[in-house]
């Protein structure tokens, strides 16, 4: 089992068999960011988030676990995603 956190939306437990698909979807997001393709980023990122939500089970509120993977908030823009790659820190200090 892997734990995936979607920032702002909590954590989800995902069966390890789903992780391969997760990586595929993630690579598609990275490709869209690299291409600077806004609509493609929106589409692929939404698919990635939907996969985690639909295939995963929400971690109960009172349970404290660390995450294996972290995804940015659902309303992340292409520019914000690009900052994460450029290392300027989409995550402010």
């Amino acid at each position, binding site marked *: 089992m892997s734990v995936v*956190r979607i*920032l*702002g*939306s*909590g954590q989800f437990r995902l069966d390890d068999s789903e992780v391969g698909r*997760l*990586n595929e979807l*993630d*690579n598609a*997001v*990275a*490709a869209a*960011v*690299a291409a600077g393709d806004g609509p493609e980023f929106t589409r692929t*990122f939404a698919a*990635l988030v939907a996969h985690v939500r639909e295939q995963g089970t929400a971690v*109960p*509120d*009172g*349970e*404290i*676990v*660390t*995450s*294996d*993977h*972290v*995804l*940015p*908030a659902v*309303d992340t823009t292409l520019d914000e*995603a690009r900052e*994460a*790659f450029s290392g300027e*820190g*989409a*995550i*402010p*200090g």
Partner: protein
Amino acid sequence: MAGLMSRFTTLFKVKANTMLDKAEDPGETLDYSYTQQLEMLQKVKRGVADVVTAKKRLQLQTAKLEESIVKLDGQARQAMAGNREDLARTALERKSLIQGQLQGLDTQISQLEQQQQNLVDQERRLSAKVESFRTQKEVVKAQYSAAEAQVRIGEATTGLGEEMSDVGLALQRAQDKTEQMQARAAAVNELVDTGAIDDLTAPAGSDLDAQIAALTAGNQVDAELAKLKAEVGSGTPAPELGQGAAPAEAQEEPK
């Protein structure tokens, strides 16, 4: 290129690890962590309150803009009845600007509602985790030495560091969003608040109207002006009323 997820995971973990400072005395570290968690919970509560306040402000602004629309509509009609098409156009252009602004406000209000809901959910999750941490902390403190207790509760501490980072980022996003909204609305708000927007007595061709005309160019102002002209025109007891009566007769003919 590495995936977005792995990149983001690394960045986030670095931040999460710095979330909970350690106290100098290991025995105090767990209690200190708990105090920091409670402080973060207070921050989220304030964050929710701030979003609610911002939302109320936008709702008030909506009500004001709606009043202005009614007023400008009346002014346009009066101006047209008084054969002042120029003033009627000015009033309709301003109305059009405000209508655009109102649509923007609706979107912003629903975005703030979403932010509010997210923060409330996050507060609920953090609150449950903090309570769970408190219980675990008391249990391990009763059973182990301070140093051992910290090791035993290590995962919970890291996990809560994550949760607090996540909440901290959400608060930052909510704050940025409300600030952006306020800045964007400020210019039109000022015009409405000072009453300048529905004061048509300002000298013709003023800067304000030139700006508004440019902003609303190519939209429905011309069509609305023509419609108003027809409406007001047909109700005016002017000598040329006879011409206006002809279409009404023509409509009756097919019967």
